[in-house]
């Protein structure tokens, strides 16, 4: 249970025509957290964020942002929410300088130093036209416009989308700067799990429109367990294991990834008469990937030998 939430979402559902894009999603984002909003393409992340900002109307359910119904956010409250859409929109004909002038006219608390620091960080020339900037620079300009009002809540929709590594690093550094500010909440949707692991302390995972995880990152890590089960013969068929995310056979070993591992899992595995059962640390990226993966029909791509000379073997079947 999240105390002092900045965002509260209850039973949020959105249909586009017949297609359900967000399916009865409920979560809360803790104040001061950096919350990563993960999910595969088309899982409904951007739609959820747009509903939170009142740009889109839910088909069902409700959401609150900073204590207000997100469908009726007071204008002044919108000033406390910074939003960076995934395409990093800027007004193309404006120069960087003109962009600042235009944006700052709406924000009495516009922090010029933050704007300047951000555009410096991305190497932007004030006289350059926004439309002529590279993708990474445009992202920097858009981010500067979002940061300069010093919002209480930052909603970043896949800010690293399409950025080269340098621009991505600059973006990440800027986000790290943001997180220094106490009380500021960041809701960040991204596919870059390395970056997320560094900065996020809370996690939301949408899988095919359904919320499948809403927890601190540490909890998520704890709940995902990986076992290496070694046999002296070809591994047998696995019995049904609740929460099994992935199982991979490498020669005579099985690597099993399980969410919310049941208490009797080791006993279940021991019943298969393995030589050895090792509980391995699982890295964040593997855990998230396994959690979001669709396990159907990937046998061909997982069929890999343990060594270049080892015979090819069939992949371990999922439960």
């Amino acid at each position, binding site marked *: *249970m*999240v105390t002092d939430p900045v965002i509260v979402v209850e039973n949020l559902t959105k*249909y586009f025509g017949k297609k359900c894009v967000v*399916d*009865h999603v409920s*979560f809360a984002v803790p104040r001061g957290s950096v919350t990563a909003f993960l999910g595969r393409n088309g899982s409904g992340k951007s739609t959820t964020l*747009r509903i939170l*900002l009142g*740009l*889109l*109307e839910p*088909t*069902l359910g409700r959401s609150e942002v900073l204590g207000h119904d997100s469908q009726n956010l*007071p*204008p*002044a409250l*919108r000033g*406390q929410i910074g*939003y960076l*859409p*995934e*395409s990093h*929109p800027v*007004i193309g004909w404006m120069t960087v300088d003109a962009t600042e002038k*235009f944006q700052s*006219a*709406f924000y*009495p*608390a*516009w*922090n*010029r*130093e933050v704007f300047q*620091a951000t555009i*410096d*960080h991305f190497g932007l020339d004030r006289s350059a036209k926004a439309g002529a900037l590279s993708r990474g620079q445009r992202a920097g300009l*858009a981010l500067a416009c979002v940061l300069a009002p*010093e919002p*209480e809540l930052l909603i970043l929709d896949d800010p690293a989308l399409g950025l080269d590594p340098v621009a991505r690093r600059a973006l*990440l*550094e*800027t986000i*790290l*700067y943001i997180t*220094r500010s106490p*009380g500021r909440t960041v809701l960040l949707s991204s596919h870059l799990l390395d970056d997320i692991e*560094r900065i996020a302390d809370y996690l939301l*995972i949408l*899988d*095919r429109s*359904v*919320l*499948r*995880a809403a*927890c*601190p990152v540490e909890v*998520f890590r704890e*709940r995902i367990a990986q076992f290496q089960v070694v046999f002296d013969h070809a591994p047998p068929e696995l019995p049904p294991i*609740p929460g099994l*995310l992935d199982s991979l056979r490498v020669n005579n070993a099985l690597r099993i990834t399980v969410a919310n591992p049941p208490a009797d899992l080791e006993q279940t595995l021991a019943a298969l008469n393995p030589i050895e059962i090792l509980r391995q640390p699982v890295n964040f990226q593997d855990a998230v990937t396994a959690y979001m993966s669709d396990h159907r029909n990937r046998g061909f791509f997982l069929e890999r030998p343990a060594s270049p000379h080892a015979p090819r073997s069939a992949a371990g079947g999922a439960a």
Partner: protein
Amino acid sequence: MMMMTERAPARPHTTEGSGRDRESGAAPPLSRAALRRGMSALVKKELRENWAYPLMCWLVWAAIAILYTWTAGEQGINILGSVLIQIPTALTASAMGLWIGIGSTIRQRDPDQWALFIHRPVSRSHLFLGRILGGTLLYTLALGLPFALLLVLAATPAGGPFFEWHMTLPTLADFLTGFLCYLVGFLIGDRSAFILGSRVLPVFLAIALLYADFLLPRFSWYLALAALAAALLLLANWGSTLSRGYRLQRATPLPARWSLRILLTLAFLPLVALASLPFWIILNGHPFNTIGPRAPDHTTTGYGLTPDGALVKRTLTSSNGHLTVTTTDLDGHSIAPPASQTLMQSWSLAPRFSWPTNYRELDRQITTYSVADPSNQPRELWYFVHPAGLAYGYDAKTHAFLGTLGQSGFSPPGSARPTPFQHTEVDSYPFTYPNGIFQVDFDRRTVTTLWQPPSGERLLQIISAPEFLAHSTSRGLQYRFAWQLLITNKSLGIRNTETGALQATLALQDPLTPNTRLDELPDDHGWAIEDTGPGYTVSHPPPFTVESRFPETFARYDAAGRLLWSRHLAVVTTSAGAAPSHDPRLRRLQWDQFQRGLLTSLTLPAAGLDPTVRHILLTSSPNPYFPSLLTPWLNTGLLLGALLCALLTLPLTALYRTPWKPAWILAALLLGPAIPLTLLATHSFPPPRPRPAPNPTPTTILT
């Protein structure tokens, strides 16, 4: 990772006074000054973003100016009265308005661009206001500047010798039309809807507004329409900005929602009208439809004038489908049939309905008279302004003001203006007003009163019966008005133009007996006059049937050549009534004249068909056939059509959850396809469907 953390910029200090109470989470609303600053920035952005539109507009107007100068315009008429200026003014204003409206809003069709624009600490209403202000300024810059230059030019001698402020009204109306078109364009560009559906529908509104700009005769009428349209469009646009998002279905304010519905319905009306046309035809018949029962019994009275100036009374009585024409003198005594054939003039005492003169028809408001010098070059130009009842004279070369002519005579510059002619003009030649007939000599600058009605009477109508004397190619048509028929509110008189005396008078009991339909003149070809046995029949095959199954009969004569009844018939009269009135050659000639639009008079050359012909006039009496009523087949068709429309409406009302369902069904029964089409136009299509159940939730990690 550490490197990146180290490189992150240090947290800078917030600008003074800009801190917020983060603890409480309260966000103070923007101060008035901050809001003004934001709005100002928004307006500037709109102007800067769309600067190309005014530029394009100015280029178009430069081209128009060059074209006008190249064609040298129209001599003697103010530049504002020129068709070369009026039509481009209206067309460019509406096209540019539409273009600016669409172009300035369509840029934000991308959802993220829209989010960038809309997600700021200003209400959507304020953002809408800023955009509209910016767009209005842009439009004013684009169109207002050339229009202002045009008006300034028109007000100077370079624009024409004569200028009055009301001449600017058409230009102002065009400017308003353009602004309305801008709002229409805004709605098209801004509104979230299918581009090939209801989103593009308001284009028809722009076309309708352009029509109204030209059609409405009074500027005040157009002003009222423009105010109403602007209010509806602004409300609809406001609602569009409030509700727009990624297909946002947010409830818009009720006035905005209803404005949009009204506008879409109005824009949809042309289609509805087209769909309802068959119903309308079935219900009301059409002018060429003669099937159905005859008219009920009726009697119509008209008056006629014989060549010797005597008045006769004609009464047409229809009883049981038979028409009887009786011609009597004014005392009710019967007159021998030949007298009715020699009618020189026939008229009906019906009120003349005429659409008021359009305020933009400057040539109808202002008649230009030219006084030529001996070399036949214009020496003086006199502008008779009908609404003012005064004529203003100018030197044709120097454009110097010469003076004013009114009912009381000439008044030179600097002196008091003469008494004007009365506002309501009865006829322009001769100068005829309710208080008399006047002769104005612009060359001598004199005004002579020819006739004045008795005290307490007003002249309502003057009909001049011309007698053609000769035809000369060099001098034009020569004729004289032998008689003038003067109709006042109390009497009817025949005035001899030679002596100026009234020859006969008739007290009118009911001067407004409606028995004429002069507005339905035929303008197509295919007329025929057939000898149908005992009488003549003038008929016209309807254009829709090859077999001519339902010929429209316009006139019928008895065997003796007497007119039994007629409809839009040109009556040929002769000088003395001696020549046959219905000579087939003359009739053919007469119909030729119909086809050429020469409706009321015909001059025959010396070698003409009949040198005794004096005049051909148009007369009319009611068609004994009424438009068709319903036949059993049509009845059945109508009933089935109405039921079909009701059946179509029923599921639509259920799908759209429309209130007052019985009323919609009843309306569909009465108005046909207009109702289901209106429902489709004003609701989203396809209708919303029930949502399926949510997906089952798999393994989750929720805390």
